[in-house]
């Protein structure tokens, strides 16, 4: 193995090289992700139930507040189902971003002592959030049975949508985590940002209530297209708003490589400032 170490100002744009290095660390990625999941449930009494309970409780609260009290329309679907189908991908995104952003500063000890590609830390939290998502799908299946919604081939759209969602979550995590190392303000502001972001995405209300003149700005947020498409796929219907999803794909495809290069640039001196 021949390694040449140079100053940080060179080579950080070589994403292909970063990926090759990362490939050598797949074992660590696997072990850490497994560890993340097992530790998360080891000290809690309800264990895996918590993975399911979080979106479920939110669904109940949202149903009471937004449907029964605020009377928000839900496209003719039972509001509980309407909310849950969006909460599932949203919870994946928000959990991954919240934990991933803090993942570097909570592992200061490791970062200042050992080298490994630092992106592994945020990625393991994404994997853990994915695990929760799969658990949540089981509950969705029960909900759908309860509301008598039979599964159709539309459900298969979930797989590519999941890839897109993870890619976007990863882009956001990488940027926020790298900034958080230098400016801890990010961690403090994060809960508010995530909360606002949820209301700026069609989680509790349908896309159709957003006024047309706001739509361009609204669709730049990849979560708009992703959440709407997820809901359509999970409710067994064709994707209704294709332009919003296309915008999401374009934004993700542009932002993710930039976010990764930015992260790698910050990585070079991370141990000095963390």
């Amino acid at each position: 193995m021949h390694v040449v170490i140079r100053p940080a100002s060179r080579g950080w744009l070589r994403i292909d090289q970063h990926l090759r290095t990362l490939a050598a660390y797949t074992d660590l990625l696997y072990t850490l992700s497994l560890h993340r999941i097992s530790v998360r449930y080891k000290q809690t009494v309800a264990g895996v139930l918590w993975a399911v309970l979080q979106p479920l409780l939110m669904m109940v609260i949202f149903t009471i507040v937004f449907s029964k009290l605020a009377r928000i329309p839900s496209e003719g679907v039972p509001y509980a189902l309407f909310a849950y189908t969006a909460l599932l991908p949203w919870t994946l995104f928000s959990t991954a971003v919240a934990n991933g952003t803090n993942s570097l500063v909570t592992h200061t000890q490791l970062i200042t002592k050992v080298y490994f590609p630092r992106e592994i830390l945020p990625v393991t939290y994404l994997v853990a959030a994915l695990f929760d998502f799969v658990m949540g799908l089981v509950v969705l299946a029960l909900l759908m049975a309860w509301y008598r919604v039979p599964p159709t081939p539309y459900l298969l759209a979930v797989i590519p949508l999941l890839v897109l969602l993870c890619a976007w979550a990863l882009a956001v995590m990488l940027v926020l985590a790298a900034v958080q190392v230098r400016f801890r303000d990010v961690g403090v502001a994060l809960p508010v940002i995530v909360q606002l972001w949820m209301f700026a995405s069609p989680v509790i209300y349908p896309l159709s209530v957003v006024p047309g003149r706001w739509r361009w700005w609204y669709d730049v947020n990849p979560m708009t297209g992703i959440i709407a498409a997820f809901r359509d796929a999970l409710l067994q219907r064709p994707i209704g708003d294709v332009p919003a999803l296309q915008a999401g794909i374009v934004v993700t495809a542009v932002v993710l490589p930039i976010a990764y290069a930015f992260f790698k640039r910050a990585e070079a001196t991370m141990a000095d400032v963390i």
Partner: protein
Amino acid sequence: MIDIRFDGVSKRYRIRRPAAAGEAPTPGDFWAVRDVTFEVPHGETLGIIGPNGAGKSTVLKLLSRITAPSAGTITLDGRVAALIEVGSGFHPELTGRENIFLSGSILGMKRREIAAKLERIIEFSGVGSFIDVPVKWYSSGMYVRLGFAIAAHLEADILLVDEVLAVGDAAFQLQCYERIGELRRQGTTMLFISHDLTSVDRLCDRVLLMNAGVIAAAGSPRDVIRAYDQMTDDNSAGRLADAAHVAMPGAARVVDVTFRNEHGEEVRGTRTGGPLCARVDIDVLSPIADAVVEVFYYSRDGRTLHCQQTTALTPEMLPLWEGRRSLEFTCPEMGLQPGVYAVGASVRDRTSAAALDWWYGTRLLMIEPGKNVRGYFYAPHSWRWADVAERQRHSADV
């Protein structure tokens, strides 16, 4: 074949000094390492010594890619691993066994590799049946030993060792030395950073002395350690020594220091409060009119705990004539606590205080538990009742 090559490497830290009242903070640059160039050929063990803040740890951080250099190029040939105590990578909820996998992967081992070495790691750590208990129930000693056991079983072409030997008890340290020796014999290239000059002398083929971010000296362990000693010796005697060295060309070399018991048999040490005889063999190369011979006992971190010297006992002159001489220090009751100590010896010229030779041996002094010690050392003492008549006096050793 060159395994490690540093080519004009510098590392600059930007420092923001805290603002004084009403002033803007003044950013400044601090060069932790400045234009450092060196090479380590395959199979060599290179030591780096120097005072705190000299840049030793920065060199290690640059090598292990924890931080990137500000200028220059580092070239590495082979798989690099850092022999550091990674108990910090442990998760308290996981068992020792689970943590071996976690910590091993963090250090860059493959899962298959860890599984193959699992038994050896557990055995090395000595935690025994505790291996399946969450590490939060471990004593701090077990924690550290397990962390180190994992690191010691890394398979690497280049091994970076940073101050790890100050870990655990004497027996575990010996085990660590053996393991490092084993890796050396297997041809692992090593970079060893330590304040423990005895270990540096024992383990390294070559040593770099760093000071203020640059290489101040390089060469054989003994020469560089002597240079370091002169650099740090900031008392007036030390400074005088340099000047006097030229004027008084008396020369001697300490060859060895050995220990004997009360029967004259060679031993590795004694027990606390037990008798000990230290014999210093000296090759006198040219006559010294009035010499001072000293034996030093050091702690692991290099502090002088005890020194026995000829002048303290004999006010008259001690001339040393050419040839091999042996000098014995006899101590009826050695006061050091149980443990392993490094041993050194020196020959000085009395009038100038110039160090003619300073020997950091490969010898270790083993002190077994003997007299009960609370505090830092044992001192011979007795007791009696002071409030009764002389004829009723009792006395006893404690």
